[in-house]
């Protein structure tokens, strides 16, 4: 993946490197990431249109997983309503482009801002909840948003869907085409990964990890936990909202059932957890791995692909509960690469 190598500095800041690790120049993750992005920039001309759409979907999930990682991975708040921000961004775009007839390039940042403001407003009461309660509350917000969108058809088209005019005179912004959306989602994925990398290295990243490990202790050490959590939630929502806006324009016609599908949230979580929560690289690897596996299964096992995906998730969760990146880091450090001893850690 393009921006994968931006992860290494974050990994280093979370856990100081031991002396024997081979030294690489400090700029290599950024340089390597830039090289990979350049490679992806040339890739779209080499792919069939079907493959190109698959890779575009992978980029979207990289962006979504990176965004969820901020609130779920670093801060440790299991947000089960992330898809609410996705749908909110999508429907903000629809309303702005269809009713206000604004350009997509205004609607995209507007969608991010709307999602961020909404997250900050609901975050103030909801981020006081812990654990499962936060998970259920955010799930309730997302489901409530879906019902709301379904029931104001004058603005959103309701359950029968809304269409963004994308060709001819009625189009405020012409549809971007497969190549255009490839580049748009690549850009979004890069932005999300860079934002996460910067947050991870900065003061906020330390505050978020402190909140994750022990919120009371973090507060006692002078971390303003409310501000840190709300900022993480809002930034995560903004990135998700932007992805939703781009997805809405790509799909042209959108339906609330699809845009607020709880499965999208769960996919984000699966990707982050299996890749490695709280790392920059993990969600990127997880998103790419699962999106590609899912697409492969869809083509080769059309009947049973969800079933196989379920079985794979079960196996992966049992063997690698802390995610690929965290497992690899600990395994390298302790020289213990056995998956069985990994299972023993969490077994009852």
């Amino acid at each position, binding site marked *: 993946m393009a921006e994968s190598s931006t992860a290494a500095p974050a990994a280093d800041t979370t856990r100081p490197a031991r002396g024997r690790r081979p030294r690489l120049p400090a700029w290599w993750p950024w340089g390597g990431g830039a090289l990979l992005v350049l490679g992806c920039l040339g890739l779209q001309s080499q792919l069939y249109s079907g493959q190109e759409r698959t890779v575009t979907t992978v980029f979207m999930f990289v962006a979504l997983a990176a965004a969820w990682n901020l609130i779920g991975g670093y801060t440790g708040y*299991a947000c089960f309503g992330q898809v609410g921000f996705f749908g909110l961004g999508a429907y903000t775009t629809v309303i702005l482009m269809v009713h206000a007839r604004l350009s997509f390039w205004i609607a995209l940042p507007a969608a991010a801002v709307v999602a961020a403001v909404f997250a900050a407003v609901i975050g103030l009461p909801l981020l006081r909840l812990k654990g499962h309660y936060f998970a*259920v509350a955010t799930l309730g917000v997302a489901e409530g948003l879906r019902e709301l969108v379904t029931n104001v058809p004058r603005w959103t088209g309701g359950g029968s869907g809304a269409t963004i005019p994308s060709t001819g005179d009625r189009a405020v912004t012409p549809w971007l085409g497969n190549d255009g959306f490839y580049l748009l989602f690549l850009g979004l994925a890069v932005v999300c990964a860079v934002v996460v990398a910067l947050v991870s290295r900065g003061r906020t990243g330390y505050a978020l990890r402190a909140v994750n490990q022990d919120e009371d202790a973090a507060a006692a050490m002078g971390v303003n936990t409310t501000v840190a959590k709300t900022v993480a939630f809002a930034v995560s929502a903004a990135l998700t909202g932007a992805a939703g806006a781009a997805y809405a324009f790509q799909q042209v016609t959108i339906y609330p059932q699809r845009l607020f599908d709880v499965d999208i949230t769960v996919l984000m979580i699966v990707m982050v957890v299996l890749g490695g929560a709280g790392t920059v690289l993990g969600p990127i690897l997880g998103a790419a791995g699962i999106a590609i596996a899912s697409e492969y299964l869809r083509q080769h096992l059309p009947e049973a692909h969800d079933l196989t995906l*379920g*079985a794979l998730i079960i196996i992966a969760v049992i063997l690698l509960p802390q995610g690929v990146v965290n497992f690899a880091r600990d395994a390298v450090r302790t020289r213990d690469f056995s998956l069985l001893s990994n299972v023993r850690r969490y077994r009852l």
Partner: protein
Amino acid sequence: MSQFLQATVYGLLQGGLFALIAVGFSLVWGVMNVINLAHGSFVLVGAYLAFELNRRIGLDPFAAMVPVAAALFAAGYLVQRGLINLVVKAPIFITLLLTFGLNLLLVNGLILIYSGDYRSVTTGYAADGFALMSGVRVPVGRLLAAVVALLLTLALVAVMRRTRTGLAILATGMDRGAARLMGIRARHVYALTFGLAAAMAGAAGAAVSAVGTFNPADAGRFTLFSFVAAVLGGLGNMYGALIGGMVLGLVEAWGGQLLPGTLVNAVAFAVLVAVLAVRPEGIAGRAFYSSRVEV
């Protein structure tokens, strides 16, 4: 007025069924701190088993509750022993993901076997009804389902409070470390708990098959209802789940009368979020396990 009364009756009957589904979900959540996203698919497995028993040997769906519950108890025990116990000490996302994978597996397995078509089990009496008063009709099938659901829920509470096994489950839920030191086999107790929850879900599924149509995609709805009922009632509190289920049934029935379209769901979720933000311990009082020590 009679329309309102009819909605109330319908809501209470539906609420009884919700309560039976939610009580197992709440038990697993309270005792093991596991949110079982596959709970709704257990309900459907129960419904399809009842459907199959009815088709093959003509068994009445309410009589089928017994073999269905037994089968799901065994399945639930094995799932907990073989899968969930392996990750029960990991962070909460992990068990969530595991049960999500299980849900995908079960729902899509059901779709493969039975397709996505709506099914139902028809009995001679379930659609009959009697008039409670002018304009208020009580369908026999739903009444039977609600009464059985209530009895099963109360029986579960009695088992938990009165029997050695029930007390072992409660003790393990309060403090797993201390329970193990007292000689309780936590692995076995967890598996029993999960088996009981699955059995309740299966019994509820058999009742669902008798009172209406169902298809594999309903699993998510049932899980969500149990979620809401369990939270409204307070985590792990079984009487709370009963009350939560009733409240949910009533809100759904009244909302369907008063509000256009599916806006009632939006209201239900708004109530849920408000309850969580203001009274996270649920409307029925404090959570059963207020001080949890994880060992």
